[in-house]
């Protein structure tokens, strides 16, 4: 029985056009990638909706329309009591925005946990993301940064393995930006902070947490933009195919 199963699996692989297509991303990486992408878009859209109800930022514990701000976003607000300098008020969409924001936050937490736990035990993080695998040297890193700054088309080998800059960036997004977004988000929850006061006090207070949450979101948007631009430069259809079907076309016979 076991042998029979193995045989049928192999014959399936053989039937596929193996000469030009090879496995690239595991099913887990692909599924978590697309759920995270969807959640990030939902979080950004709803986050923008929430922030326009009060586009002012403060530092410390408190801040409101009666106190000076750290900085103001140069946009109109969806509430009339915020002095933005604009003569009109945007429509208030906080109802569905808040619900969507927290639903997407829960989804991204579960997805992230599944990805990190399986990546730790399955070797994905060690093999594909730890920069040592691609030779973490200052030269390699500065070469990658220069290539990125010019949006230069990546070479063929990079279709099969992340370069050093990619590895460092992905690790920063996974282990710094997302956790920081979750931490600062929780620090804005009066109930969570009643159990873990340090979540807010370590950052300087509720309003500091909100301001950091905003800057982390800006960094995530920046990452998303560069990520999409580089995917387009590297060959949109092949990279999309790799992240959707798991298999990528190779230009050389033996990648």
């Amino acid at each position, binding site marked *: 029985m076991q042998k029979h199963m193995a045989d049928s699996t192999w014959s399936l692989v053989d039937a596929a056009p193996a000469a030009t297509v090879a496995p690239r991303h595991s099913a887990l990486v692909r599924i978590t990638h697309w759920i995270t992408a969807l959640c990030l878009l939902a979080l950004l859209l709803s986050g923008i909706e929430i922030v326009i109800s009060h586009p002012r930022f403060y530092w410390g*514990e408190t801040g409101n329309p009666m*106190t000076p701000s750290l900085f103001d976003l140069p946009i109109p607000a969806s509430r009339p009591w915020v002095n933005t300098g604009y003569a009109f008020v945007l429509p208030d969409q906080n109802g569905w925005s808040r*619900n969507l924001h927290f639903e997407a936050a829960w989804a991204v937490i579960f997805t992230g946990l599944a990805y990190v736990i399986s990546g730790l035990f399955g070797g994905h993080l060690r093999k594909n993301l730890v920069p040592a695998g691609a030779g973490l040297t200052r030269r390699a890193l500065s070469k990658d940064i220069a290539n990125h700054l010019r949006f230069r088309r990546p070479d063929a080998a990079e279709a099969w393995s992340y370069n050093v800059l990619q590895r460092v960036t992905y690790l920063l997004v996974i282990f710094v930006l997302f956790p920081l977004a979750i931490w600062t988000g929780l620090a804005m929850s*009066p109930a*969570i902070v009643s159990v873990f006061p340090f979540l807010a006090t370590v950052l300087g207070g509720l*309003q500091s947490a909100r301001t950091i949450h905003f800057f982390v979101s800006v960094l995530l948007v920046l990452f998303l933009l560069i990520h999409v631009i580089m995917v387009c430069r590297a060959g949109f259809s092949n990279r999309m195919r790799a992240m959707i079907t798991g298999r990528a076309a190779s230009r050389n016979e033996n990648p």
Partner: protein
Amino acid sequence: MSNLSRRKLITTGLAATAGASGLAVAARLADRYGLIPPDHGGVYGAGTTLTYASHRLLTRHSLAREFAPSQISKAPFAKLRPFKNEAFSRMRDSGFVDWRVEVDGMVARPSSISLAELRSFPARSQITQLACEEGWSFIAEWTGVPLSHVLSAVGTVPEARYVVYYSIQPNWWHSIDMADALHPQTLLVHGMNGAELPIGHGGPLRLRIPRQLGYKSVKFITRLTITDSLERFKKGGNYSWYAGI
């Protein structure tokens, strides 16, 4: 091959049945321990239920942060738009001496409590932050009678699960579960920063629930209804019923 697919079918079926019954058991347990919020249905039900359930498990004995007198905001903000209400204007002109709170529903002694009586009840003062869902916040000292004191005075029945509280403003109410209603920091506030509660902040009487966002701290309280079901009380607005976030 047919052997294989039959086996696959059976395992998938078993896994699906186990998963479904596991979920059903979890839902029954969650309901029994009060972990399901009234707005658990709909597209956003999953998120709001996860938040409510995890908070109910985590915040059982937690107290909202209290601050030092030096941290009280010099400029507490109130976003009150002027509203026309004859009953309110009349009572304001007579210094709110006629302000009363009706308490009804699942209580042993339905009551009508005057503002003077509420002020004579044992008061508690706490310096907590009011955080609005919009993003702004301020810190103030709030003085009032713990809601738990009023509830024990009227004698809530054991089946009671929620307290619905009404503003004098038409069609404006919210509700909380008994965990928050009996929480020591949940106050019927009549004083702020050492003076009477200003009208802008909900004077003469407002509810304060410092472990939830500001929209649950309804202003101008005139009625409390104790109930075991919120079916009759449609949620105010489309915001999450639980606002501990």
